């Protein structure tokens, strides 16, 4: 039926000035094929005709320009406006048409009359809940009254207040009205596709049984759920079993968001015909994005302090949206599993433990301090020592949290720890076997249909979750075992010696297991077989810089067989530094720099291993105090030595577990990276992506939806992410500790003195020239014997350790990768040297004392003298 003042919503492109914002957005949903209940709109023309014919214009002008009523007069004012609209005469044509529209729907049951103002569902002002909606209308006469009351709600005092606050022009405003059949909803509610109060990675759903108006009006407390945007994992309270459609609802929400290009506030209903979308509008209460924010950064809530230390080795540098959405939930979950295993699960409740600022990963230091302090015997100080390598200087009125538990509680906690850790070694072995098995499968991904490809990726990811949990648990176990060893030795030899001996006792024992060392050995074997006796190959490796392939190929058969073996070997290395991140065969600069290092240095790296324990035992046994105590306590066998040996074994075991878990995670990351490439190729072929590399700018969930056929995130949003990503890359590293916005943290002055103090990570003294490195790629300039000065390193830097004479880093603690590898290779290393990369310049001569933690700048020392 054709109407003069009404229009069916059939997806033909109704504009907001005709049908209002809400109806216009519903029309777009209909056009895009989303499930929207059938609807007809009494257009804005009808409203204008009514106002004109009823002579309401002077009255409305008065409302528009007059003062707003005081708070206690609002109800009376609203009644007055409504009465005017109900009293005003309506033309028979218009009234008949409204009743005819209602009559179309009424035979099927009661109808809903919803407002749809021309100023509604705007990007900056949603007018949510401001206009009237009438449900359960059973007759055409009731419908006519409801339409007139809807029109009146355009001028209700609350709406006028809202419009003036938002500075919205009231000239030409109109109200269209949507007439719809009532949804026979079993559940209804609202969904925010990006949680306005919580994490940007989550969606929020509120649901009530029956119709959703009870929820909107606040008459009932809804069941609330938070759904992860990527994994669609559901958390929340309420009758989950009855709400088995939540995952479908979440997918639907994300599809609507993709189409609209912005996070959406969606009203939905679950009916016998399935899910129906009643309304969708942009979320207007989103927080402003910082300059560097690509939409994936964490909004620091409350007063929590964050630090990039400790986590920057797991998630180094600026982490792309794709890698963040893959890795962050796994790391967050790993910390929570650990907390749960050691009985402090309440600490992280409602807080994010892993955050992202300026694209860089951070840990919630406040939550970690509290977790440590709630463990009997633990303290916030220990956490700072472990993650930062030193204890921070706090304001005088701040006291670091510390446990006050007694000895029995400590024993119980130690037992719980032992229980949590005792199967770690077996778990690591299992993981290593499983990862080798998965990589060995070498499935041809091109043959897999989309669903199967996603299932395959999902199983790989399950294993990655398990490895992340093991890595974090091993790190924690290693840290406490290492600290116990330090304290034990310090009891006899003093604090400084305790630190030194703990380093020596755990050095060298990690050969083959540390991330990178196994890889170095494999490449060394290839080098020994192919290059040692072939000077031409050696020369190609040295002269070829980061790209020697062509030069090697030109050598003929010997070069080609060498390349074949290197390529084959490198394929199994997996990711370089971050799970599912860049692989070694994707960017071979690191491999060539490692092989070139072999060619440039005639000596194999020193093995840091030595029988340190025997040396320590001899030292302790020589002490009269030690011998006296043994005699006086009647020890037939020296129990303290047994304890020391056991502690050394334990610290070494857990350190090895951590390194092996990390190594396995990276190898498995190569398998997931293959899936990402395959998906990128398919998305390029289907036109979803312009270039394969753009996949890094999408979240994991978005990629999955696109592979399943959903539309991509629109271009403007993608460009914003790209620009923010580039800006974050250009920005410097994060401060050591910050609260809220890292940009406002105090960076301190750059040191100018001749001696810089840091944390002694690996013993020994070296005097050589400095090479300040800002990236791994710059490592090809490193000359043999030079001292690496950098902000931090990750496992992909291991090749450079072969060439370097010493290490100076701005970051790192006793158990950081750099410390472990430096000790393994016997390189003097000082970590935690503030602003080293800014103070020291390339070519400057340094003395690095890895025993005392001093970095001496020779030229400045000479000037001072």
């Amino acid at each position, binding site marked *: 039926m054709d109407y003069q003042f009404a229009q069916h919503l059939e997806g033909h492109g109704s504009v907001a000035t005709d049908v209002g914002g809400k109806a216009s957005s519903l029309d777009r949903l209909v056009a895009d094929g989303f499930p929207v209940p059938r609807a007809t709109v009494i257009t804005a023309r009808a409203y204008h005709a009514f106002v004109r014919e009823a002579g309401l214009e002077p009255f409305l002008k008065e409302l528009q320009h007059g003062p707003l009523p005081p708070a206690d007069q609002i109800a009376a004012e609203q009644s007055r406006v409504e009465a005017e609209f109900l009293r005003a005469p309506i033309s028979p044509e218009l009234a008949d048409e409204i009743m005819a529209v209602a009559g179309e729907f009424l035979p099927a049951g009661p109808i809903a009359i919803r407002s749809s103002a021309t100023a509604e569902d705007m990007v900056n002002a949603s007018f949510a809940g401001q206009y009237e909606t009438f449900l359960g209308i059973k007759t055409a006469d009731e419908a006519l009254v409801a339409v007139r009351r809807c029109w009146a709600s355009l001028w209700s005092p609350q709406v006028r207040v809202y419009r003036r606050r938002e500075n919205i022009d009231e000239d030409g405003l109109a109200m269209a009205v949507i007439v719809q059949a009532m949804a026979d909803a079993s559940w209804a509610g609202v969904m925010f596709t990006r949680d306005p109060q919580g994490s940007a990675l989550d969606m929020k759903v509120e649901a009530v049984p029956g119709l959703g108006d009870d929820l909107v009006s606040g008459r009932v407390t809804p069941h609330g759920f938070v759904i992860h945007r990527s994994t669609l994992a559901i958390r929340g309270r309420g009758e989950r079993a009855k709400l088995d459609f939540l995952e479908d609802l979440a997918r639907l929400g994300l599809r609507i968001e993709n189409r609209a290009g912005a996070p959406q506030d969606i009203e939905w209903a679950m009916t016998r015909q399935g899910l129906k979308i009643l309304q969708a509008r942009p979320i207007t209460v989103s927080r402003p994005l910082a300059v560097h924010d690509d939409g994936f950064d964490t909004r620091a809530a409350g007063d929590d302090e964050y630090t990039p230390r400790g986590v920057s080795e797991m998630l180094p540098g600026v982490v792309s949206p794709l890698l963040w959405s893959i890795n962050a939930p796994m790391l967050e979950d790993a910390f929570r599993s650990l907390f749960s295993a050691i009985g402090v699960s309440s600490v992280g409740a409602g807080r994010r433990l892993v955050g992202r600022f300026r694209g860089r990963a951070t840990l919630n230091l406040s939550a970690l301090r509290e977790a440590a302090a709630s463990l009997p015997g633990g303290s916030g100080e220990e956490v700072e020592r472990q993650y930062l390598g030193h204890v921070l200087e706090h304001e005088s009125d701040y006291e670091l949290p510390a446990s006050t538990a007694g000895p029995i509680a400590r024993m119980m906690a130690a037992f719980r720890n032992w229980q949590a850790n005792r199967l770690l070694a077996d778990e690591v072995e299992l993981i290593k076997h*499983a990862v080798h098995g*998965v990589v060995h499968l070498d*499935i041809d991904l091109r043959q897999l249909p989309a669903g199967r490809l996603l299932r395959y990726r999902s199983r790989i990811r399950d294993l990655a979750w398990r490895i992340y949990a093991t890595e974090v648990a091993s790190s924690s176990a290693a840290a406490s075992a290492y600290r116990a060893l330090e304290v034990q030795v310090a009891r006899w030899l003093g604090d400084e010696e305790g630190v030194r001996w703990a380093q020596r006792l755990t050095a060298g024992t990690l050969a083959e297991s540390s991330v990178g060392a196994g890889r170095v050995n494999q490449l060394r074997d290839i080098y020994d077989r192919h290059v040692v006796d072939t000077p031409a190959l050696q020369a190609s490796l040295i002269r070829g810089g980061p790209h020697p392939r062509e030069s090697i190929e030109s050598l003929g058969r010997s070069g080609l067989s060498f390349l074949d073996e290197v390529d084959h070997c490198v394929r199994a290395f997996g990711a370089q530094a971050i799970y599912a991140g860049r692989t070694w065969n994707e960017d071979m600069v690191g491999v060539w720099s490692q092989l070139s290092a072999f060619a440039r240095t005639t000596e194999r790296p020193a093995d840091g291993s030595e029988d340190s324990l025997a040396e320590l035992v001899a030292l302790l046994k020589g002490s009269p105090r030690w011998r006296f105590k043994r005699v006086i306590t009647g020890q037939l066998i020296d129990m303290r030595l*047994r304890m020391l040996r056991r502690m050394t074994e334990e610290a070494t075991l857990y350190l090895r577990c951590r390194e092996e878990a990390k190594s396995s995670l990276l190898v498995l990351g190569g398998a997931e990276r293959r899936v990402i490439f395959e998906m990128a190729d398919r998305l390029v072929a289907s036109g979803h992506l312009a270039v394969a590399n753009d996949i890094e700018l999408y979240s994991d969930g978005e990629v999955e939806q696109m592979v399943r056929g959903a539309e991509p995130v629109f271009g403007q949003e993608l460009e914003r992410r790209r620009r923010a990503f580039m800006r974050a890359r250009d920005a410097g590293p994060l401060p050591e500790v910050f609260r809220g916005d890292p940009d406002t943290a105090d960076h301190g002055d750059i040191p100018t003195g001749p001696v810089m103090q840091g944390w002694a990570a690996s013993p020994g003294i070296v005097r050589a020239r400095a090479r300040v490195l800002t990236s791994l790629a710059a490592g090809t300039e490193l000359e043999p014997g030079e001292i690496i000065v950098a902000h931090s390193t990750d496992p992909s830097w291991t090749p450079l350790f072969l060439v370097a004479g010493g290490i100076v880093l701005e970051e790192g603690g006793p158990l950081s990768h750099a410390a472990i590898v430096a000790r393994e290779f016997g390189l003097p290393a000082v970590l935690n040297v503030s602003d080293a990369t800014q103070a020291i310049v390339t070519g400057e001569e340094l003395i690095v004392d890895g025993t005392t933690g001093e970095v001496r700048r020779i030229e400045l020392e000479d000037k001072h003298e």
Partner: protein
Amino acid sequence: MSRRVPLPDRRPDPVRDDGLHVFVPALMGVGMIVSGILVIADWVHGLLPNGRVRRKQYIASGAQGVVLSVAQAAGYNLEGPDFHAREWRSRLVYALWVGVFTVVGASALVVGLLAFNDDAGLFYRNPWMVGLGVGTAVVLGLLALQLLFFAIVHRRSFRAAHVLVETTWFGRLKHPPTNPGDFAASLRLIERKGTK
């Protein structure tokens, strides 16, 4: 002029003091007992099997399960060894067991009969003693016969014997591959029917 007279030393003599007389030997005693226990615990620990094979089996079969789930997600199946299987022990081991069971079985029979006939003993004319001795001897004798059969026929035995060895303690635990590379090489991807 006064003369300085040295005052007697009133500090407790660390050796002759009564408190220390008790404390030092007590402390030493406790230390000796604890360290003695540790020595014995070490010795016992060295004697006991450390379950290494079972651990390897747990690891290998657990990892196989993970790899299988990945392969199946991609529409494939996995072929690989049964990491819980057992294998034949050496003939010598079976022969030694025959000797041990025979000696223990015969001893049980002799001890039972002697106790039954010893009129000064607690079990004189007690039929349970004879029953226990004969029963033990019969069970161990049968086991010895079975083991003798295994020692002679060994791997050439019939199918049921193989099953018995592969599923019970008659066989020894098979060592699964320790090296992850060898483990991976023992697995083979096979296509599942109807998935391609």
